[in-house]
């Protein structure tokens, strides 16, 4: 038994009401609800009864939810936010580990073969790299905002943009020379680690932006 357009519209309205506009999750939940309602109707329920039961089942998963991992100012359907929480935990772990490895390697290499370059040159390279990171974040944000299709990946990037851009900007040695190599308060290993972490963090988000792109430009399988 297939649902008619009005009945499908009811389900869509429910998902709109729950702010579930993320394409990757919405398509599967919509399909799940339709299948489940059709099954109940084929067993004798009316659409209203089946729809009400289905809403009751989904309400806990789609209720408004926020997490300190993402910042308590951000809230959204629980299913979306929990996916974002899982992603950010993994990103922290991956980025901190990768930054640590990079920092240790650079620190050891610098200790064994002291770099005789002028600290200003190093700062210029690092600073330019960080400006590129800022540019990328702003570019992703604008692309996601302008796109008519939203995904959980895009949402995840959006809620992390301001914090990331501000941090990258603050710690840019070209913006504030106290954060540069060779400055009086330079912490050596600490600054290498911090800058490595910023680059790795941006790199990992580039992969998430690619997933966002792949989701909105999906190709239908035959």
């Amino acid at each position, binding site marked *: 038994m*297939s649902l008619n357009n009005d009945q*499908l519209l009811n389900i869509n309205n429910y998902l709109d009401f729950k702010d579930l506009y993320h394409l*990757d*999750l919405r*398509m*599967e*939940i*919509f*399909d*799940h609800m*339709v*299948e*489940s309602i059709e*099954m109940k109707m084929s067993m004798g329920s009316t659409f209203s009864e089946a729809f009400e039961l289905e809403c009751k*089942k*989904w309400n*806990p*998963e789609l209720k408004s939810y926020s997490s300190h991992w993402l910042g308590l100012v951000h809230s959204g359907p629980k*299913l979306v936010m*929990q*996916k974002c929480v*899982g*992603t950010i935990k*993994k990103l922290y772990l991956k980025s901190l580990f990768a930054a640590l490895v990079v920092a240790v390697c650079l620190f050891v290499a610098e200790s064994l073969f002291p770099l005789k370059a002028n600290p200003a040159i190093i700062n210029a390279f690092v600073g330019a790299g960080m400006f590129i990171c800022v540019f990328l974040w702003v570019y992703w944000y604008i692309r996601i905002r302008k796109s008519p299709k939203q995904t959980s990946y895009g949402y995840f990037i959006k809620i992390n943009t301001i914090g990331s851009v501000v941090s990258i900007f603050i710690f840019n040695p070209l913006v504030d020379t106290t954060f540069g190599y060779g400055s009086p308060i330079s912490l050596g290993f600490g600054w290498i680690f911090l800058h490595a972490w910023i680059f790795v963090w941006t790199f990992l988000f580039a992969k998430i932006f690619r997933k966002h792109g792949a989701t909105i430009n*999906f*190709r*239908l*399988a*035959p």
Partner: protein
Amino acid sequence: MNKKLCLKFLGIRKLAIFESIVAYMGNAKLYKGSLNTIILKLLEEQGKMYGYEITQKVKELTKGELQITEGALYPALHKLEAEGLLDVEVTKVDNRLRKYYKLTEAGVKETKNRLAELEDFIRSMQHLVNPKWSID
């Protein structure tokens, strides 16, 4: 929860062993810990499946005694996808989009590993809680 769940999905051949483990761990914990393995095993057998189909297949195989909730199923599917164990395929069915999940190459290997690990675990538990039973 259906005590034959693991017999059906995970290759445990003695119900008593599962009963002993359930008694030791509690149903909820055992089920939660096995959900990813159940999904992987089903996808290995079926090729590709969508969310609703997975819940119905589990219900059917366990004669309705085990029902995977949506709140547990989708986070598990997304986690497995993020780990690179599942791939996604979108098709159009009755004017709506349907998202199918299927195992990646890494997923196929991981399924074998997880089933082997689970069997080892069950074997160890069996020795601990009820030495007279054997899955061999």
